[in-house]
């Protein structure tokens, strides 16, 4: 595994990201946000800095703070600075030992990937980003060849700012475009226009320091037609990014989309319709594509992008050969760990040890203060599990993440790590419960077919969970 040095216990990834408390975010691209190791999470509010509106993207549910109308205002800067201060303290206080098992100082391997995401890191003034990178380098070291990715939203940066980021070490950019259709962008509450998207693409492509770049698209968006989707895909192929992420829109509760569409989807009797329509009667509410239509869009993306030479290496990710996102691989192989810093970030450092940080700024500050006080990680952040649960959890994670990827689940590793009995149970559950056309299995690998199997991956995995007793606690 190219990311990992030595065995599992040493694998360290870091991602850090900064976002900021009152700040940032905008989770405008669902996509880029999630990819932040640090920040990801639920309810988010996003703000669209350039529009002078306090708006959030209508599908966003990350833990972020509103920046306010003007990301460069005094108050916003102050908030970001304060957040970055805490972030740096957290980084400085994070011990190797707790993250990497028994590792005892000495020659720790430096970080191989760093990812800034979970909000809109591109709102962060370059000097603040620089101090975060510096803190990481000081504490853990950063490999000279490390992939340092950053999520960037069109409209929040220009060529000059990008150059400054690149000078600080950023060498991979993930552009949160979401759509090449102006109406869809508007309906989704995105803060940027199509022109800004194109300018951003041009800036990224022109910058020689950006070794690789990625582009995010969302399918199944309200108002998105198959025609518009096919055009978006074509335009994406035309601008030739190294990597494309295609997300199927998820309607989360507590987002505006959730309010709009969940009642329609689930309340067949239309109970809530009146309420909802009153609530938003002033807003255009385009129709959500049907399940069949969005399934069709998934098929279209798979076909178009594969035809254009992209490899569909994970449910939502496509890359030119050899250009997969190094960082994400860490999550999906399930055999390595990572550090996470920042509000609501999660780190994973060895089987069964996962730490999630508080999701609110104030709590997060208190958490960092507590770290300072005890040196060691505060006990409340520690998830203590029985060995059985930990094992079941690790197994679940291995399957859940592995089956999302084209590489699938490595059955040889699975047997090494969990034993023959577990392997046998899984194989027989797959044979009994999964339709043949959705799965590819041989002696070494269990993989979902593309795109049919991937499209129903949640069903398949939950069926497996229901029938493999090693996957749930007795």
């Amino acid at each position, binding site marked *: 595994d190219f990311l990992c040095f030595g065995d599992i216990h040493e694998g360290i990834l870091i991602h850090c990201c900064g976002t900021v408390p009152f700040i940032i975010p905008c989770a405008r691209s669902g996509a880029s946000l999630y990819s932040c190791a640090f920040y990801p*999470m639920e309810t988010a509010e996003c703000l669209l800095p350039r529009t002078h509106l306090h708006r959030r993207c209508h599908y966003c549910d990350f833990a972020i703070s509103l920046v306010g109308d003007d990301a460069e205002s005094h108050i916003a800067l102050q908030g970001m600075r304060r957040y970055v201060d805490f972030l740096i303290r957290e980084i400085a206080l994070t011990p190797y030992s707790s993250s990497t098992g028994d590792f005892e100082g000495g020659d720790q391997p430096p970080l191989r990937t760093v990812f800034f995401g979970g909000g809109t890191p591109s709102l962060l003034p370059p000097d603040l980003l620089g101090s975060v990178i510096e803190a990481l380098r000081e504490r853990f070291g950063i490999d000279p060849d490390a992939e340092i990715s950053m999520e960037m939203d069109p409209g929040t940066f220009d060529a000059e700012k990008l150059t400054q980021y690149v000078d600080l070490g950023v060498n991979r950019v993930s552009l949160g475009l979401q759509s090449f259709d102006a109406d869809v962008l508007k309906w989704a509450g995105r803060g940027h226009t199509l022109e800004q998207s194109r300018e951003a693409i041009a800036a990224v492509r022109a910058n020689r320091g950006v070794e690789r770049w990625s582009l995010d698209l969302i399918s199944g968006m309200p108002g998105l037609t198959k025609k518009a989707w096919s055009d978006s895909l074509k335009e994406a192929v035309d601008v030739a990014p190294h990597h494309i992420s295609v997300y199927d829109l998820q309607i989360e509760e507590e987002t505006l989309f959730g309010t709009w569409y969940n009642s329609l989807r689930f309340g067949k009797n239309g109970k809530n319709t009146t309420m909802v329509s009153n609530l938003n009667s002033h807003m255009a509410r385009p129709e959500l594509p049907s399940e069949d239509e969005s399934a069709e869009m998934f098929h279209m993306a798979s076909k178009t992008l594969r035809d254009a030479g992209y490899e569909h290496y994970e449910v939502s990710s496509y890359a030119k050969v050899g250009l997969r996102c190094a960082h994400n691989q860490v999550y999906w192989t399930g055999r390595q760990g990572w550090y996470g810093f920042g509000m609501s970030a999660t780190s994973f450092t060895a089987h069964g040890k996962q730490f999630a940080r508080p999701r609110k700024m104030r709590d997060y500050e208190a958490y960092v203060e507590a770290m300072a006080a005890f040196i060691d990680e505060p006990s409340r952040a520690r998830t203590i599990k029985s060995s059985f649960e930990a094992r079941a959890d690790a197994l679940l994670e291995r399957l859940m993440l592995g089956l999302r990827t084209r590489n699938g689940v490595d059955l040889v590793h699975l047997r090494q790590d969990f034993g023959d009995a577990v392997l046998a149970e899984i194989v027989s559950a797959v044979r009994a419960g999964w339709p043949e056309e*959705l799965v590819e299995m041989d002696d070494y690998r269990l993989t979902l077919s593309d795109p049919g199997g991937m499209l129903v991956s949640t069903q398949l995995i939950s*069926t497996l969970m229901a029938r493999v007793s090693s996957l749930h606690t007795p």
Partner: protein
Amino acid sequence: DASSARGRASERKKRTRGGSARRRERRQARRKTRIRARMASAAPASRGAARASTAARDAPFAAAANGPGRFRRDGNGRNRLVAVRAPRRWTTRAAATSGDANVVIKPKKERAKVDPSAVLQVPPSQIRNFSIIAHIDHGKSTLADTLLSKTKTVAARDMEAQLLDSMDIERERGITIKLNSARMNYVANDGETYVLNLIDTPGHVDFSYEVSRSLAACEGALLVVDASQGVEAQTVANVYLALENDLEIITVLNKIDLPGAEPERVKREIEDVLGLDTEDAVVASAKANIGMEDILENIVKMIPPPPDTGDEPLRALIFDSYFDPYRGVVVIFRVVDGNLGVGDAVKFMNTGKSYTIDEIGIMRPQKVPVNRLSAGEVGYMIANIKSVADARVGDTITTTKDASTEPLPGYSEATPMVYCGLFPTDSDQYEDLRVALGKLQINDAALRYEPEQSSAMGFGFRCGFLGLLHMEIVQERLEREYDLGLITTAPSVVYKVYTSDGACVDIANPADLPDASVRDRIEEPFVKLEMFAPSDYVGSLMELAQQRRGEFIDMTYLSESRTCLKYDIPLGEVVTDFFDELKSRSKGYASMEYSFNEYRKSDLVRLDVLINYEPADPLACICHRDKSYVMGRGLVDKLKELIPRQMFRIPIQASIGTKVIASTSISAMRKDVLAKCYGGDISRKKKLLKKQAAGKKRMKQFGKVEVPQEAFMAVLKVDQNAGSGG
């Protein structure tokens, strides 16, 4: 020399009351003739029919109180116990909440201290035993409350609304399930103190056998009729039961204080429908405390005292029993002949079991121990009895020595009328379910169960119940008290299947039905159904009864605006959504009542369901050939709604034998994917997957197809209105 003084007093009384007693007898005789005539026309051989209904005691009012659809489940409350046989006694509620068989019954070393002056002793002539009969919601419980406080039996400070309905399920459903009794002392206008024993009756004809035994323990009954609503189906059924037991009936028009009260119209209805004299009817309101004295005086004057048979061999009628985890079974009885006391060796004549009495006493309504009880009195007994099945309602208690030769009439075994399969959602809970059923049975003699097994459902039990209400209550208790997740299959009645070699088998599980080639004929239980409704709804109710294969018997007008419809109808058609349908078609105004009539030959077939070409036994049902198409169509459509889409197309078929009569299919799920899953998301997505997997685990597996719990009741939800055409 108190006793001789009392004796003289009663002598005097008998003399002075001789004249009025004779008048009363004449009046009674006259009335009874009228009523008998009426009953004969309504139900041929009324006595036999009523007895049969006693044996059947099925469920109309299961539904009557609260149809399955409206059954409220109490999400938060494990402590909101539901009990059929679980005791609801005022003083033993804490103990009463469990039917826990593991509790060791401690032998009582010392007998309860008896305070001889605590309970007033009177001769039989000054005892009145009565019960209250009423339709649901006509104010029975409130009347009982008012009588208790009026006679100062319960101190004002201990008084709470609906004292008699303190059990949770009764409160939840607004009905009385469990009977109770209370002894009251009342100083009448003639200056004498009378002992009045109120024997409460369950307000449910699921338990009509218990009702009939309670009534058999009385000499009179208060018939409570809501003065604004009039006679309802249950009123009629209860009055028939009371007349069966030769009770003196005192009519009470309750809720007279309500603006809508129409006492004159209701009196007319009572005379016309029930044939009762309303000359002496008391106009009352238990809530506003109107007419209570009149009621008490009428009880004393009109209800005959129990016969003075204290010297004869002991015969006492058990009308209730319940299991107290600390004391064992508490038996509630009425002494008919002779007397009994602490330390006596007694025998239950029908079960043949013998016991020594540890404690005996009266209910006021809390238990008060006494030394002896004699003819005419009502009380309780504790004798180290381990299960209520050993002290069955209707049994006769006699002494071991000088035993009575003849048991009291009317005893009958519990015969379950409705069966269903109960399976644990999680197969690991099978053993827990077995233990829980065993514990419930200790306190519920009518509950039957035997192991059942099916490839899809795993191990479970086939359980028999008195009716739908009984079934719901047992399920509810298993879920609440024993924390079991259950899957219930659709209820089925008991069919008699005659095979070609002449043998007859009882079939309570459609899956057990012998193959058509070896069947000679199938007989199914028919009931007599009475529906009372405002005349406006007659058309739609007749349509309903016809759809459900009812055979019209009779229609009578109670008044210009109210009608009584009588039908013979298969029980199997009633134990579906019949009651809900009745209520919805009549906007809630109709009431119904039924009693078992007979087994009749019908052209019945078994409708099988195939899911993904595999037969799903628990979904099979027995229905009439003429309705099989409608049922089959409805069933597959309903299943299509209830079974979630899966990763492949699922054909669903209904068939009779090998012939498919209806089919549909559930299309494959197109999309179920989580778009993103990165570092911070992983634990969140994991939770989501776990939740989804837990949902799947609760489902049952037919081949590759996962079928949710609700689907097993699908047959009840089939819309039979569509195109059956009667």
